[in-house]
């Protein structure tokens, strides 16, 4: 088990290999379909992105609202491939990593390799358990999107598996089944 902290610098990422188990601590930013589309549209229109994404970690997640007294509700990953069309442009902004579940496109894999970032897998469908790793959460952008807003999460020992490492190696390629 490897413990790493955000921001995810190139040095921190370099030694991570596909399949490694990682505990991540620090700040991560949630963004799913609607937030990706908005950020992508801003990029395409040449507008300023109201978010510093340098070495940031983006988490594909739309949490449930917190019960009183808790930081966050259930907060597992959503399917990453729905973000694939937007991801190369987001990677261009200098992010350090992404967290989601499932397969990525070849374009995303090439962008990861080119920019030396990393794609982490979180286990899907265990959002209650993952909520215990989140110390605080607050919406910081696109608040009107509700669960789809960008939330700043402070996490401690968030359990992940390296899905695609900075050399473009994909854990699913060695998982023992053939991709369709």
């Amino acid at each position, binding site marked *: 088990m490897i413990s790493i902290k955000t921001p995810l610098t190139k040095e921190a990422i370099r030694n991570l290999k596909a399949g490694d188990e990682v505990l991540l601590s620090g700040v991560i930013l949630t963004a799913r379909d609607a937030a990706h589309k908005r950020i992508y549209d801003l990029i395409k229109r040449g507008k300023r992105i109201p978010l510093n994404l340098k070495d940031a970690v983006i988490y594909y997640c739309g949490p449930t609202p917190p019960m009183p007294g808790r930081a966050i509700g259930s907060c597992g990953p*959503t399917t990453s491939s729905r973000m694939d069309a937007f991801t190369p442009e987001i990677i261009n902004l200098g992010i350090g990593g992404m967290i989601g579940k499932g397969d990525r496109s070849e374009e995303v894999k090439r962008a990861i390799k080119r920019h030396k970032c990393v794609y982490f897998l979180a*286990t*899907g*469908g265990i959002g209650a358990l993952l909520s215990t790793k989140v110390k605080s959460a607050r919406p910081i952008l696109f608040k009107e999107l509700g669960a789809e807003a960008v939330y700043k999460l402070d996490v401690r020992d968030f359990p992940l598996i390296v899905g695609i490492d900075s050399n473009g190696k994909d854990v699913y390629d060695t998982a023992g*089944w053939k991709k369709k």
Partner: protein
Amino acid sequence: MREINVSKIKDAVTELCLKANFELRRDVLKALKSSIKNETSARAKNILKSIIENAVLAKKKHIAICQDTGAVFVYLAIGQDAALVGGDLANAIDDGVEEAYRKGCLRKSIVKGPFIRDNTGTNTPAFVVTDIAKGDKVKIAVSPKGFGSENKSAIKMFRPTASVEEIKEFILDVVKGAGPDACPPFILGIGIGGTFDKSAYLAKTALLRPIDEPSPSRHIAKLERELVKDINSLKLGPMGLGGRTTVLGVNISEAPTHIAGLPVAVNVSCHATRSAEKVL
């Protein structure tokens, strides 16, 4: 006629939405526990253990099992001797959903339309199907269905002369297409026969049946067993990271169909397949 006030239906829908989102089904939990013993890799075992740990925590602390608290599918079997009184049934169901999603701090995931994607803010409307049944009781089943797996579902209209092997190949292709994205180990609801829409209805309602309860029809039960074996041979494993558990259960429902066709619908569901039911 036995009168049932729709406010009772509303209360039942609220209760069942909360129960389904916080308590993993007994049959699903049982299948997860026994699948650990079949796995050989530490990674597959650990993922299954964390899924079970999550279920225990969700039930104890009333935190949703999964943040995708779903589109709410409501199945009603209304006895023909029951009279629903005291208001509008569709409103009562939606009021029940709204109350559960507010009180339970569940995620509101429904938007107004496919193009006007404003959140309705209440997780309504619910997606309701009704059957007319014998007697004077109303059976209500509620299933909050996540869309990671819903997105991987498929229908194919086969030739009436298609072989069972061709149908199996299609189902295996749907599972391969779902891959690691849809949170394996899966539960599959499969509808065979009927019409285009009926096959989807059969697939969806098949997911409500406990996975340790085979089809009462012997040839369908045999097909269910064969598919479990074939799908697990794919070695996709928990979360697609390899292993022997790709599917926890396959439930098939069949129906009469037309001489010219053989519809097959596959409703993919994740390891957090949720539902709860009661009879009023």
